[in-house]
């Protein structure tokens, strides 16, 4: 269980918004961090503190397959994203980077930015005294997430860790 401050975004947050193309070629994710979400909210990246969470509507992460998008969200220290639904490439990329994604249909409409949530992965999220059920991920994804991402899972496969 962990608690996290909520930053709220809308529907169809595409990966060009999460990180525009002009910043994709930076050599490190650290250099990309200040530009996360800049087309929509230029000041958001500087406000997000490690441990905070993002709450969004439908189709979070749609568009480009750029994996820099979940990597930069992870690098900002975001503990998890709770959305009504995710675009499929973003979903895979996030899990592969060890970023926890939670699908929850009701929470988005009932919470405000700045609210504090208590998250118990695979079980529930509590906000403002109300509890929201959340499902577990499929086994093969839980394995990748628990290994700390796909790179670590592959290193294990290759006998390196």
């Amino acid at each position: 269980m962990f608690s996290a401050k909520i930053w709220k975004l809308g529907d169809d947050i595409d990966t060009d918004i999460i990180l525009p193309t002009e910043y994709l070629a930076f050599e490190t994710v650290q250099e990309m961090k200040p530009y996360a979400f800049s087309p929509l909210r230029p000041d958001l990246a500087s406000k997000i503190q490690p441990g905070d969470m993002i709450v969004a509507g439908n189709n979070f992460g749609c568009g480009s397959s750029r994996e820099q998008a979940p990597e930069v969200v992870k690098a900002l220290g975001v503990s998890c994203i709770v959305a009504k639904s995710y675009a499929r490439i973003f979903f895979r990329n996030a899990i592969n980077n060890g970023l926890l994604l939670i699908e929850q249909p009701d929470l988005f409409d009932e919470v405000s930015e700045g609210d504090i949530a208590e998250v118990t992965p695979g079980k529930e999220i509590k906000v403002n005294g109300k509890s929201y059920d959340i499902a577990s991920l499929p086994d093969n994804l839980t394995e990748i997430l628990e290994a700390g991402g796909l790179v670590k899972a592959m290193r294990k496969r290759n006998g390196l860790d």
Partner: protein
Amino acid sequence: MGYTLVEKIIAKKVGHEVKPGDIVTVPVDWCMIDDIMVPFAVQKFEEMGFDKVYDPEKVVLIYDHFLPATQTDDSRHFRVGDEFAEKYGLKHVHRTDGICHQLMTEAGYVKPGDIAFGTDSHTVTYGCVGAFSTGIGYTEMAGILGTGQLWIKVPETIKIEIDGTLPGNVTSKDIILRIIGDLTASGATYNSLEFTGSTVDAMSVASRMTISNMSVEAGAKCGLFAPDDKTCDYCKIPYDDEIKDLHGDDNASYAKILRYRAEDFVPVCACPSLVDNIKPVSELKGTKVDQVFLGSCTNGRLEDLRTAATILKGKHIAPYVKMIVTPASRKIYRAALADGTLEILSDAGAIITTPGCGLCCGRGGGILSDGEVVVATNNRNFLGRMGTSKVQIYLASPATAAATAIAGEITEA
């Protein structure tokens, strides 16, 4: 019970029947890595500790987004790619030949029934020849480079039947924009789209590519066409019984079937700043434009350039409009040069650029600024995609783009 096209393709590769929802590990026929993602994929591959690429014949590196380079750091991507290709003996590196999604079928790699993954979301384009192909991140690509396989969830299928004859000013771009509008930007998430019907049968492979290419804008995992004799001509393979079996069965189980009459389609635009914000061009008349872009993996093919040239022949674009034309590949560029298409476009006042992704991803010449309006034939009108977040991007067909360039305002062809 029969099978959908995607179920047939996957079942054949894994050697047993599959049903939607099954999680299966598939062998990978083709890996496509574009220049933006090359250094990241290489870094992850090395971090994973692999010492060889599973099959150097099956990996294709394509430099297209950053070509010609516009920022001083861009050439690092080419250098890292070249070094990786040299070290692991990769056979296929395209340094200046055009856009990845055009080349993967045009250069003879992906064939009907193949499974391909690429580090770009528009990898879905190869569905135009009846291949299962989709976009992935660079970490998964690194995993495939080492193992030759990837897990996928077998998708449910939405069948889209289109019958009849299209109006003269409607192209396959108008069809897919309308369908995305009807499905919404997330309406096909995790699904395979399967396109059938007499309108589809009559289409060129190039027109089908436009539709497959934009399937991902409705969230789809792939957008498939059953291969036919035209597909086989394009792929230079025999139209044999194995190919003929690659179609969705009538008694397959579909999540949904959408039926359209071709005669009902009209020219449309995707309006700022969502791909599913679809309006008829006739309702947008009077919207003044600063720039028109004809190109991209969606609509940079010879038939697209010819469609525009037919409209622009003997005319001139409005004096305040910049029109940028970017052929999708060197082969298309040369064909359009040879048949006089480029001359017509140039005479009309268009700027012809080198093949590549160019303006579509906001990296090439022609990026726009606050308050400017662009009509563009590419696939995304997201905030900030082609310049600042205050640029208004309208996505349209090549015909609408050409007519708009002449009028200087959004206009039906």
